[in-house]
């Protein structure tokens, strides 16, 4: 997220013990949009680590080990709660590159610059811009496409392709940044409204619109994937807090707010052909189970099995829908698939274990066709109590019910 920097803030803290040798590097960085703070003071470095804004720390000493030793000495002097986000770069000579690369691989540094001599003059600028973007600082650098050198030619169609492509990428980036800004604002407004215990319907609706706009954006897939996890949770929370839905009776809520995709229709419980003769004779309250499964056939079979055992089954194929159900209905047991269209079932299980809700103590059984060891370990870490390999068998369910003293 972009923000205006204070006049005392800088982008790069450049620690150098030999300013003369680093002159070209310093000038190159200064000629860009970067704001530099050049120093040879250890105290200034310690203070820089504490300053509450993202920045790059660029260490330049004769020996890369001296650079690292000094940086880590200073780091040790700053307690965790005072340490602010930054990237660490070091300069090195060509002969030290291999070692610098190993430090990079071990994450001791975030990147390095070959500066003695400075073979690629502008490279340090691109590295710094990238590091700042990782810290969430966008300098919005944009310049027209470079002119071709004398004698160089580019076919018209290639030139046009390049121009259109670059414009498109920049437009997407600007739109994406704008979206993030608006989303940030919508969250702040909604948060303020919730803190006053007066959820404002229009703010919630605005936030939901922002959520759906962000979900439709395909720019930066990795970031979008991460956002989706957070957005799904927000979506579930909105379902819970939205005043428009608070007073609806349960049946209405399920049919209105839960948009069952068409592919889920064959499994409706009110299908007479599937329910004849299998309803329990008594009318006592049934144990309720949440089945999260995106495969139609598997869901149909599991559902039939569970209904045969006398469970009331709530079924959804979506992880975020499951989270919404979990906050509004109490379940005896949760059966969770891993590969879901919108999220990962293990993430939903993990989310549940961190949520304060009516199902905080409800056991989760992972239901999957995968028996990889690492998935089993992930399931255990997510708080799941059982790991069942598909297809689900009635005997497995009976054993599970016995374990939790569920009458079937």
């Amino acid at each position, binding site marked *: 997220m972009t923000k205006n920097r204070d006049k005392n803030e800088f982008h790069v803290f450049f620690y150098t013990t030999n300013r003369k040798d680093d002159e070209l590097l310093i000038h190159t960085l200064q000629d860009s949009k970067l704001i530099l703070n050049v120093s040879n003071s250890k105290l200034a470095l310690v203070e820089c680590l504490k300053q509450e804004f993202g920045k790059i720390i660029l260490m330049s000493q004769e020996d890369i080990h001296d650079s690292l030793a000094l940086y880590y000495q200073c780091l040790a002097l700053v307690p965790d709660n005072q340490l602010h986000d930054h990237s660490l770069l070091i300069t090195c000579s060509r002969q030290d590159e291999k070692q610098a690369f190993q430090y990079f691989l071990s994450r001791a540094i975030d990147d390095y610059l070959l500066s003695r001599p400075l073979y690629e003059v502008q490279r340090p600028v691109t590295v710094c811009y990238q590091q700042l973007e990782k810290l969430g600082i966008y300098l919005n650098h944009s310049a027209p496409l470079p002119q071709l050198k004398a004698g160089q030619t580019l076919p018209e169609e290639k030139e046009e392709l390049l121009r259109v492509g670059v414009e498109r990428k920049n437009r997407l980036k600007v739109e994406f940044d704008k979206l993030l800004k608006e989303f940030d604002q919508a969250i702040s407004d909604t948060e303020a409204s919730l803190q006053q215990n007066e959820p404002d319907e229009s703010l919630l609706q605005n936030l939901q619109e922002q959520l759906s706009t962000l979900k439709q954006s395909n720019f930066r897939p990795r970031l979008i994937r991460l956002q989706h996890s957070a957005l799904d949770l927000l979506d579930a929370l909105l379902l819970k807090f939205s005043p428009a839905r608070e007073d609806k009776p349960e049946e209405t809520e399920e049919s209105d707010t839960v948009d069952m995709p068409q592919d889920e229709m*064959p499994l409706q419980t009110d299908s007479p*052909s*599937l329910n*004849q*003769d299998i309803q329990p004779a008594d009318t006592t309250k049934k144990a309720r189970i949440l089945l999260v499964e995106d*495969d*139609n*056939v*598997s869901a*149909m*079979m599991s559902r*039939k*099995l569970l209904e*045969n*055992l006398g469970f009331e089954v709530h079924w959804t194929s979506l992880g975020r829908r499951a989270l919404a159900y979990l906050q509004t209905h109490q379940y005896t047991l949760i059966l969770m698939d891993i*590969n879901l269209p919108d999220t990962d079932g293990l993430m939903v299980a993990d989310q549940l274990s961190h949520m304060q809700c009516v199902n905080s103590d409800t056991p989760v059984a992972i239901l999957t*066709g*995968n028996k990889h060891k690492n998935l089993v370990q992930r399931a255990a870490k997510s708080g799941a109590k059982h790991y069942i390999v*598909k*297809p*689900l*068998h*009635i005997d497995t369910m009976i054993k599970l019910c016995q374990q939790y003293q569920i009458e079937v």
Partner: protein
Amino acid sequence: MSIDPNKITEYVGDISDAERSEMLTNFKQSLKDRQSELQAAIKSQNWPACAQLTHNLKSNALYFGADKLHEVSQAGEKLFLSATLETNDLHAWLEKFNQQCQLVLSSIDSVLKDERHDQKP
């Protein structure tokens, strides 16, 4: 017979004939859909989608006693998840898979036909 309809009861418990027919019909439709989705995914070289489709079919087949389809789906999943996918292996597998799908679909049709016949007065 490439399926064993009695397996359904083993997995889900007692069911009526009508329920069994409905399940078989749903499985038949799902198998047809999956088969065409898989063809499309192979065409576009979307290997993760292929792995997911075969992964789902792998367990679905067991509910209906379609053991051969289960085996070929399992082999398919392994193939699509492998780092190197040889064209020859892919073609050989696809042939086996289509063959199994055809056998299972015919078996389902045959069971459904018999059931309809039994229901006639």
